[in-house]
């Protein structure tokens, strides 16, 4: 009798604890958070790379990040040779700060049975947790492939139990016009990511908590043309 009583109470307490952890996570990752973040000189970045187009889009974004964003850890699927090559090429050209390339197993191959995908997903999640722990990122950039969900959950979990502070940004591919991809939808509805950036107005109206890239303030670049330089020199 006592045993049953304590089991029930323990379950309820655990439930309350987890719910509180999750809710405080959501509050901490709301829009006003940046005011409380300590200013850092260096921001370690973890970028989860997909294949083909996703990799190119991610590199387009990383190209625009400033010198503070170092070191960068690129997470690749084990089987993805092409993306590795692209990343190496990109970093060689850019030559800014330090970077590493990490490989994790794919969470699910096409055509895999449901039962075996449970075990591979568990393995993938374990790897993701270990990877996030080792890399200790301040910023996690995600943009689409299935591998990004375990990473996002792992990073959010470590943040939830307050041993890490991590900002998660998901950018949806330009290919998505009407509907979020499955990974984006999971992260959007669970609220695990700080921002979901979308590139088409239709998505913004369908998923109101996303951020439309066209709504963000335009960055005015200081462009000094040659003629202006000449006149200044005179």
């Amino acid at each position, binding site marked *: 009798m006592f045993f049953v009583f304590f089991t029930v109470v323990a379950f309820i307490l655990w439930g309350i604890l987890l719910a509180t952890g999750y809710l405080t996570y959501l509050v901490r990752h709301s829009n006003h958070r940046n005011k409380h973040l300590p200013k850092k000189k260096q*921001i370690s970045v973890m970028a989860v790379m997909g294949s083909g187009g996703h990799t190119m889009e991610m590199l387009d974004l990383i190209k625009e990040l*400033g010198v503070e964003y170092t070191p960068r850890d690129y997470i690749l699927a084990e089987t993805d040779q092409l993306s590795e090559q692209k990343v190496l090429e990109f970093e060689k050209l850019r030559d800014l700060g330090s970077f590493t390339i990490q490989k994790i197993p794919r969470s699910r191959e096409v055509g895999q049975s449901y039962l075996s995908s449970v075990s591979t997903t568990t393995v993938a999640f374990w790897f993701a947790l270990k990877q996030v722990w080792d890399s200790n990122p301040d910023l996690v950039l995600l943009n689409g492939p299935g591998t990004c969900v375990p990473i996002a959950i792992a990073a959010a979990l470590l943040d939830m139990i307050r041993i890490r502070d991590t900002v998660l940004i998901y950018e949806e591919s330009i290919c998505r016009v009407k509907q979020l991809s499955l990974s984006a939808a999971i992260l959007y509805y669970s609220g695990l990511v700080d921002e979901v950036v979308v590139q088409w107005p239709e998505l913004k109206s369908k998923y109101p908590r996303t951020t439309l890239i066209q709504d963000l303030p335009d960055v005015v670049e200081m462009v000094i043309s040659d003629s202006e330089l000449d006149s200044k020199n005179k």
Partner: protein
Amino acid sequence: MLCYSWLNFILSEECIISLRTIGVNRVKLQIGKGIFNSDVRNRVFNGVVADEGSGVSYDLPVEYYRYKPSIREDIENSLVVVGHCGAGTCLEVLRLGKPFIAVINDTLMNNHQEELALALSEGLHLLHCTPSSLSSTLQNPGLFTLIPFEPPSQKRVAALIDQRMAVSR
């Protein structure tokens, strides 16, 4: 110019006439895993199809190859590009500023790859059609007055990240 599936359509008499009308004097095809039907094989290529080769269809020279590491050069040298509406292809062709016709494969309806092609055609950045309307689309005067497409700048996202990470510039 290049195309992927529905290869046999573009080599039909109707399409070749349209191509000539708009000033095309050579057709280049990236065929991937595509297969020519027996009519085209015999009429254009004298019955021989390998990984690359050439032929003549209704007096228009035709060249084909299966894959190339980069088709950028071929796109740059073309007057008009016809292709499937895969996102990668659309974006690459539009970045190079070429008039583009995306052919929507009837059998692949509701494929999310098509979303982008349809959205881009709504913004008049490209034209889309089905294999059977390809010939008339080639003669559409809108083909050469399409609006250049600028993808949104990633600088905006970088600025958002700066703000989130409390980095000031």
